């Protein structure tokens, strides 16, 4: 075995150009697969991180009509659906694995928020006293909403960093007035997500909205919502689970409870449903995976072509080395020894191609990520599988030439020259 290996490497080295040309198909194939896999992993990990977020384990449960979220921007508050009461909120917070519960109203792509000449169209949220904790926001400066703010429906608001930038440029916003749907609101504080500067993304559409709008959120006390919009708008419920694994369960139980308690009439098309972030993340990942798996098929064709190239060159090698094979057999080499020698050579050839392929794949992935700004994550597992695969290709495509060599008749082989 050791003899075979050293002879194989020697042979490879003696025919450098030929070896590299032979390996090219394998190199390109493996490199493309590594690049593609790294890119897939990179994007899907980023998506997952964005969606599932900073580990707040937040699940939102909102009103659905049939299979679509009920959109209060264009539709009136639905018949037969009650606003969520404080009692219900507390009942929700007593569910297993629930850490906190908050109720809020929301408008995305909200027009009509101004500070002087500056307009803004991010999200507007009407929140309760638990929202900032539940959604994982911390006060950067100023103050949060007080009990009086809620009780007296005071026209005060909090901004996040993106909203501050949009409405005030670099200026200090505390005490300034923001005009929301022609109502003056006083800025009392600025908030920031605790662990990560990611928005509270709760659906696929939010995800795209976030990436097209650049985010930005204005918070007002939930009790002021009827001043801006209407009475009777059903709230969305945001819950946090004690662990990521319990998110799905918490979401389902909360949705059941809300559907049972809040929906008192109507035509039966309404229900509360949880938006499972993990599931959303999976969906988006699936999307990028399926497009990229087609690319992997194409890369595999390159591997097949590479394998055939190896077979071809090995057949040439066997013919070239007929005399050597014949002599070895004359000196007592058994068939298997010759077979293994040529299989080893083919496998060494393709494995070297595999190593070069992995290296160039990693380099390529880094390059793509540098140029396009997309993340990549090179997986050790994928690299190892690619290497093993390239070795297998050598053995498979080396088999026919090796069998041919091992069956050579020693006198036929010695007769030449």
């Amino acid at each position: 075995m050791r003899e075979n290996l050293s002879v194989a490497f020697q042979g490879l080295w003696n025919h450098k150009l030929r070896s590299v040309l032979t390996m090219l198909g394998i190199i390109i194939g493996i490199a493309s697969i590594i690049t593609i896999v790294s890119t897939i992993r990179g994007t899907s990990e980023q998506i997952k991180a964005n969606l599932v977020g900073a580990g707040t384990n937040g699940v939102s449960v909102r009103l659905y009509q049939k299979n679509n979220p009920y959109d209060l921007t264009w539709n009136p508050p639905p018949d037969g659906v009650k606003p969520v009461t404080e009692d219900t909120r507390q009942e929700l917070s007593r569910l297993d694995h629930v850490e906190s519960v908050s109720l809020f109203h929301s408008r995305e792509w909200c027009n009509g928020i101004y500070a002087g000449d500056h307009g803004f169209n991010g999200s507007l949220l009407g929140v309760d006293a638990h929202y900032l904790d539940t959604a994982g926001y911390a006060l950067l400066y100023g103050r949060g909403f007080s009990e009086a703010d809620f009780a007296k429906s005071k026209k005060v608001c909090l901004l996040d960093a993106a909203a501050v930038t949009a409405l005030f440029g670099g200026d200090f916003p505390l005490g300034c007035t923001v005009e929301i749907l022609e109502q003056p609101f006083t800025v009392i504080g600025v908030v920031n997500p605790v662990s990560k500067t990611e928005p509270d993304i709760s659906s696929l559409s939010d995800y795209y909205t976030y990436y097209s709008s650049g985010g930005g959120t204005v918070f007002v006390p939930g009790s002021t919502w009827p001043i801006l919009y209407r009475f009777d708008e059903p709230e969305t419920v945001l819950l946090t689970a004690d662990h990521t694994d319990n998110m799905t369960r918490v979401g389902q139980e909360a949705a059941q409870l809300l559907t049972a308690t809040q929906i008192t009439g109507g035509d039966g098309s309404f229900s509360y449903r949880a938006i499972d972030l993990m599931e959303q993340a999976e969906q988006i990942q699936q999307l990028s995976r399926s497009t990229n798996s087609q690319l992997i098929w194409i890369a595999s064709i390159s591997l097949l072509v590479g394998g055939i190239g190896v077979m071809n060159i090995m057949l040439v090698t066997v013919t070239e080395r007929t005399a050597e094979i014949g002599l070895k057999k004359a000196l007592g080499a058994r068939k298997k020894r010759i077979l293994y020698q040529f299989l080893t050579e083919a496998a060494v050839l393709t494995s070297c191609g595999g190593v070069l392929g992995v290296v160039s794949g990693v380099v390529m992935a880094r390059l793509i990520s540098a140029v396009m700004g997309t993340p990549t994550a090179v997986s050790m597992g994928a690299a190892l599988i690619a290497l093993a695969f390239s070795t297998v290709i050598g053995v498979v495509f080396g088999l026919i030439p090796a069998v041919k060599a091992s069956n050579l008749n020693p006198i036929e082989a010695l007769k030449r020259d």
Partner: protein
Amino acid sequence: MLLEMHDICKSFPLGDGYIEILKHIDLSVEEGEYLAIMGPSGSGKTTLMNLIGCLDVPTSGSYYFCGQDIAGASDDALADIRNSSIGFVFQNYQLLPTMTALDNVALPLLYADVDRTERRERARAALERMGLGERVEHRPNQLSGGQCQRVAIARAMINKPKLLLADEPTGALDTASGAQIMDLFEELNAAGTTVVLITHDPNVAARAGHTRHILDGRLVEEDAL
């Protein structure tokens, strides 16, 4: 008896039919013998040597080498016999050009599953015995014809074979190197190795214990010539 051939024929496919190269050969060689087989070019000497050396099997007839039936043996069984019991010396040396003299000599030991250090030790000793102690790391293209043939003899003898089989070993050598090779053969025979030498040179054949003649694929007695 080291080897016994009885009524051996060998034919090769040619065109639509067959061409019979060796015709009804009877040959036996005793242990310790030094036999020369002489014949003109094309008479079938190499074909006979391939059969004796278990490189090929006869078309018909029986062949026993060391009591073992060769006619029906498998490829691997033949390889084992060649490895352990027969040393080959060819006219054109048949050394592997990419290997050093040492590695060339050690090659049969590899197929006998001898470990690497022992292989190298034994090969070095064999080359020293051939007077090539200073040439162990040379490649064949850095050696003269006579030196190459001595490397080939070292290789042939490395597994202490029962039979040393040489096909025109001096054919490509000048007279002086040829004589040196013939001396070596005599020495090896004196030390107990059976030698079968194939040649068309009467001077070479004269050094052997006795001589058989081959003519047109048949073994004939000298007085028939």
